[in-house]
Structures are given as C-alpha cells and as structure tokens.
C-alpha cells in the first residue's frame, strides 16, 4: 500500500477553506459582478496601433464625441491601444466609421486599425444566454456520464467539485476585474472537462480499491487512491501547465485571458479532485457495499 502522504487528515481543513473561498466567490460575483466584455454586454471595441499618441489623447478625443462610457487602455506592445465604447440602446451601424474618422482627423498621426468589433444588444444577450446554457449543459452531461459509469454518489461528488471550480474561477475573475468574453466561456468549459478528467482518474481508483480493500474506511480508501494516482496527477498538471504557460506568455494579448482562466482552472481542478470530490464520498457513506448494491440492481 502506498500511503506516502496523509491527505485524509487535511480533508476537514481543506473543506472549510473551500467553502470559505466558494462563498466569498459567490459574494464577489453577486455584489461586485463580472466584467463582461462586448461579447456579452454589447458595444464597440477598437484595437489600434499608432506610434505617436497616448491613451490620454485618444480618451479626450472620444470624450468630446459624447459616446457615453468610453474605456481606453494600453494593450500588449508599445503603441497598441484598446478602446471600448459602451452599448447604445439601439444598433448604430454608423458609429464605427465616425469614431475612426474622428481619431484619424484629430490625432495627426498614422493609425492602423487592427481590430474592430461591434456587438448589438440582441446578439450580446443571446451570446450570454447560450454561454450560460452551454456551461449548465456540460455540467449536466458530466453528471449523467458519471452516473452511468459510477454510482450516483460519485456523480454528485464530481458535480459539486466542478461547480466549485467554475465558481471560484469566475470569482477570481470578478476580484481581479478581468474581462469575461466568449473565449472565457470556452476556457470554463475546458476546465470542466479537465477537472472532470482528474476526478474520474481518482474515482476509478477509489472504485477499484473499494473492491480490493473491503475493510478500509472510505477516508482511508480515498487517501490511498489519491496517493496511488498522485504521480500521474502531478505529471499531467505539469505538462498541461507548461503548455498553458507558453500560451499565456507567448500567445499574444488575445489569448491571455483565456490561458489565464485555464491556468486557474487546472490548479483549482487538480485541487478539487483531491480535496473536494473525494471527501464528499465520505459524506455519502460510500463503501464497497455501495458498489455491490448497484450490481445487484443491474442483475435481475
């Protein structure tokens, strides 16, 4: 038996910590809110490159146009700026050429408009809705899959862990006021897949060990199984993080938010597989009998 580390003694502390962070994340999401990008809030985004200007002069030109809430910031390399203009109530198809013309006329320098996006109010609310549906659906699909492959206790355990990962990732995005856009939804869904992947590996081992060591308590089994799979958990996290760090550092400004969310997700997901998904089984009093009962049900 491989019991190098005693994880089960840390379960209680970890659970209290998790609940605390989880509640804090929900509080942040509810009260501070999420910083939605134009994908979900609607509005106009312009990325421009110009050598002889600064954010302040761009801002003052745009403020003179009375466009409403305007946000100008540096973006990546020197000379790159990102402009965000708040959504007007109705679609205004003329706003982009007007802004472009005003900037070109007033900045007295060459401007390269690298990226222009405009999302109308209807489309943005649809995108947000389908993003939320996609996340919920993926959670439901996971719940169902684990329910088929394991027992319902495992399925509930894994879904709570997933929920924990998604909420805390979004909570951190709220705390840091990082932008939530379409690629963040993609990242969250991938986190769901990754964290589930991690949980399944440990659950698989728990199931195997439950049958093997019928005398051990579920805490001991969980501890044993986490230890058994620990090397794999660490190696896979390391390789995935290596790939993600490479995107985060070298992949350019557009992928930065996405890779940051993924990095958070991998770390949180790895933690939750060990310290959230596994202890929950204890709460449901899972033992080798749970597995037997299920088998009896299947065989008439």
């Amino acid at each position, binding site marked *: 038996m491989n019991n190098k580390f005693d994880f089960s003694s840390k379960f209680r502390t970890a659970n209290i910590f998790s609940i605390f962070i989880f509640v804090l994340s929900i509080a942040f999401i509810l009260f501070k809110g999420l910083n939605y990008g134009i994908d979900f809030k609607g509005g106009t985004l312009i990325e421009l490159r110009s050598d002889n200007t600064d954010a302040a002069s761009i801002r003052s030109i745009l403020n003179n146009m009375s466009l409403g809430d305007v946000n100008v910031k540096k973006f990546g390399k020197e000379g790159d700026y990102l402009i965000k203009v708040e959504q007007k109530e109705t679609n205004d198809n003329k706003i982009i050429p007007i802004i472009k013309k005003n900037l070109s006329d007033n900045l007295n320098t060459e401007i390269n408009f690298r990226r222009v996006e405009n999302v109308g109010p209807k489309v943005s609310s649809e995108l947000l809705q389908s993003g939320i549906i996609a996340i919920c659906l993926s959670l439901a699909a996971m719940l169902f899959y684990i329910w088929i492959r394991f027992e319902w206790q495992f399925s509930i355990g894994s879904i709570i862990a997933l929920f924990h990962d998604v909420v805390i990732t979004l909570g951190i995005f709220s705390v840091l006021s990082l932008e939530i856009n379409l690629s963040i939804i993609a990242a969250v869904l991938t986190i769901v897949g990754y964290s589930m992947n991690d949980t399944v590996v440990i659950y698989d081992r728990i199931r195997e060990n439950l049958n093997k060591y019928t005398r051990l308590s579920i805490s001991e089994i969980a501890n044993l199984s986490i230890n058994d799979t620990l090397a794999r958990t660490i190696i896979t996290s390391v390789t995935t993080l290596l790939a993600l760090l490479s995107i985060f550092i070298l992949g350019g400004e557009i*992928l930065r938010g996405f890779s940051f969310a993924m990095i958070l997700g991998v770390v949180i997901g790895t933690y939750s597989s060990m310290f959230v998904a596994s202890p929950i089984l204890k709460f449901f009093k899972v033992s080798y009998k749970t597995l037997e009962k299920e088998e009896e049900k299947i065989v008439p």
Partner: protein
Amino acid sequence: MLNFSKINIFLIYIIFLFISFFSLLNFQNLKNPIINKKVNLGLDLQGGSYLLLEINSDPLVKEKIQSKVITLKKLLKSNNLDYSNFKINEKDLSFLVDDVEKFKLLFFSKKDNLLNPYIIKYNSFELDLDVVKEKNVRVSFSKYGLLTINNSALTQSIEIIRRRIDDVGTKEPTILQRGEKRILVELPGLKDPERIKDLLGKTAKLSFRLVSENDEFGADKLESETGEELSVSKRIIISGENLVDAQPSFNNQSNKPAVSFTLNRLGAQKFGRTTTDNVGKRLAIILDGKIISAPSINEPIPSGSGIISGNFSFQEATDLALLLRSGALPTPLLVVEERTVGPDLGEDSIKSGITSLMVGFILVILFMLYKYKIFGLIANTALVANLLMLVGILTILEATLTLPGIAGIILTVGMAVDANVLIFERIKEELKTEKSIIHAFDTGYTKAKITVLDANITTLIAAVILFAFGSGPVKGFAITLGIGIITTLFTAYFLARHLTSVVVLNTKNKEIKI
C-alpha cells in the same frame, strides 16, 4: 495487450501514415489538382470581416397586408356584405361586417380563394380572422403566413446580398443563413467593411413618379436632395424591377457623374407613353423614399434608356448603379454583429500562436524525456504522431483554424501525454508486485484502459457542447480539442503501445525501468 498480429501492426501504421499524409498538404505551395485540401485560416488569422445581418420583416408585413385591401373589399362587395369602419393598421385590417358567419365561410374557403390562399406546405391559411366583438373582425397574417413572408424575404435578401458583394469583387465571400432572421457574411481579406456595409444598408427601392403641380389627392410630400419639398403623385410609372441594366456614366451637359439605365420592354413602353403625355412636367426619381433628382421632361423618350443625374461623386454613381443592377432588398437589413481583423493582426496572431505551440511542445517533450527516459521517447513519438494526425484530420475536413483553435492544439499537446502517463504510472505500480515484466506491462495497459477512456470522454463531452454552442473562433477551439482527443486515444493505445511492446519484447529479462 503487448501482442500484435502482423495485420494489426500494418493497419495501425497505414492509418497513421494515411492521415498524417494530409497534414503535409498544407505545406505545398503549388495547387495540387488531385487532392487540393488545406486547413482554412479563420478570419481572426487571415484578416477579414464578419458581419451578421438581421432582416426586419415588419415593413414588409405592413406592405403585404395593405396589398390585401383591394381584394378584400372586392370580395365583400361582390357578396353583398355591408362593411363599415374599415381601418388599415400596422399588422392587420379591422372593420365591421354585418354577416360575420357568411364572411367566415368565404374567408376560409379552400376553393379559388384569392384573398386567403391555402398554404399546402404548412396545412394552413395565409390569413387569420379574429372576431373581436360581435361584428368587429380583424384580419391578420397567420403564423405560417408570417413565416412564408419571412422566409421568402430571407432567401431573396441572401440572393441580393450575394449579387451586391460579387459585384464589388471581394474574394471568396461566405454568405449563409443563420436561424430564421439572420444572414452571416464573411469577407476574408477585407480591411474595411464600411463600403460593403453601406451597400447592404440600403434597400435601393427605386421608383419614377410624376411631380404633381397642384396638391392632388393622395400625393406624397417628399424632400429632394437639394432640400426642396415636392409633392409627388402616388402612381409609380416604373420601378427598379423594370431595369435591366445600370452603369455609371457622365452627364453630357454638366460633365458630372451620373447613372445610365436601360429598361425592359414593359418599362420602356410605359416610360415612353408617360414622357410623351407629360412633356414639360417634372419627373421625380425616388430612391428609398428620397428624391435623388427631379428633371423636367423636355421631349418624349421612347428608347427605354436614360440617365439619372444627381449630385453625386463618381464613387456614389458607381455604387448607385451597382445597387440598381442588383435589385432592391425586400426589407431593410441591420448589422447586429460585426468583427473585423486587420491582416497584420492576423499575421501577428499566427506568429505568436506558432511560437507558443513550439515552445509548449518542446517543454512538454523535455519534461517527458526527463521523467520517463526511453518511455518518454515513446510518449514523445506518440505526441508528434498525434500532432501530425490532428492536423491531417483538420485538413481532410477542411476545417477552419482559428487563434483559439491553435490554443486547442497546444492544450492537446499538454493533455495528450496524460494517456501515456496514466499507462506508465500503472505499469510502474504493477512492476512493484509483478515478477514478469511482460506481464506487468500487459496488466498495466489493461487496467489503465478504462480510466484513459473515461478521462478522455469527459473532455470530449465538453468539446462537443462547446462546438454546438460556440460561434466563430470558439468553434475552432472545440474542433481541435475534440479531434485532439480522438487522435490522442489512437496514438496512445495503438502507436505507443506497439512501440512499447517492441521495446519490452526486445529487452527480455533485462532490467526495465520506467
């Protein structure tokens, strides 16, 4: 698990070679006439414009319901039904009718019903009849009537958008229907979509109507380009449908840009007759409810061709000619989503995507070598094979590679080794208790199989959902992630397993360390 029949080995490598062959096609510059497949670059990588347009069928519904008025009144009169209080509303017609029952019978008759045709496709009438109060009835389009209007407007809009865009001459545009009311337009390589947006933003409904001197009944007051207000007769002499061609040209007298047009036979006849009868009067040329010019008729014009001279630049004349040639849009279009990426940003994205892919790849390879030595080499070989196959399948499908798609490939690199790690770690455990090395490898593979499968299916589920709900670039990510999982399973369980078996079987009885 370590025994492979010759046919199995053959199949594994044939499949691998076949699929990875396609990945090489992306590096050929020449157009290969036989297999001309390539991974398409998304708009975020090659630069270009994405426009999502929405049709608004409300004005069309209003127009269509108004067009029913004459038929409806005729029907009422010819059947001696007295009606009063006739009102034309935005979406319906309401009036009082004496004999509601009789009207109902006529209204819902399936035989020769000119007013309310039966749509066989939907098993429904075009119009609905509501009895608001005793004699007060309301006629409006049925759900399927509205659907028919909407669908035909959508198809027609797509056709006209295609004509307009083709006329401008952008390369390889994509024009697709998206849902019930939307049209997706993708214009690769287009740096500034403003001209296209302008062209698509105009319905371009053209009509020629006489300017009435005295305020006759039913004349419209319209403003001309010069700011002058003219009252214009409601009767349309010719409309855009009568045009067969329109070209930019110059006005001979003023030498200003103009648009010359040619009418079809019917249009030419009507135009000839009207100009003969109304010499000295003014003719208003109206586009989308605005008078673009109102010249006086100096002499009859029987030829069926003429020029429209207004106050425009040559570019405007060119665009007007283009709009007139392509025909009028049935309803106004609204740009509800727009994304444009400049070509240099696309290039930068490709560069940074490739760089991070290379670096991530090298880091993972070095780490695996350090961790598993000879078996790390096997895992790395599988990883290279995995990448080749992933790109190969993307090529076969002619999938679109986006920036998030590249991120998906990098992520696959990081996660693909997981399958081999799971297997190797399992074998390590088996080696502790098992005396026979071959047996340990065998059990390792067998026991890890279920776990590997379970672990990968969960990620696959996430990818499938992302594909179903994601749009544009995000879909590209879902595609690479999903295909990456399949190639990972193949390379880990067939390719890497065979390589492992070769190593293990050839080092019989010697120490093997993982």
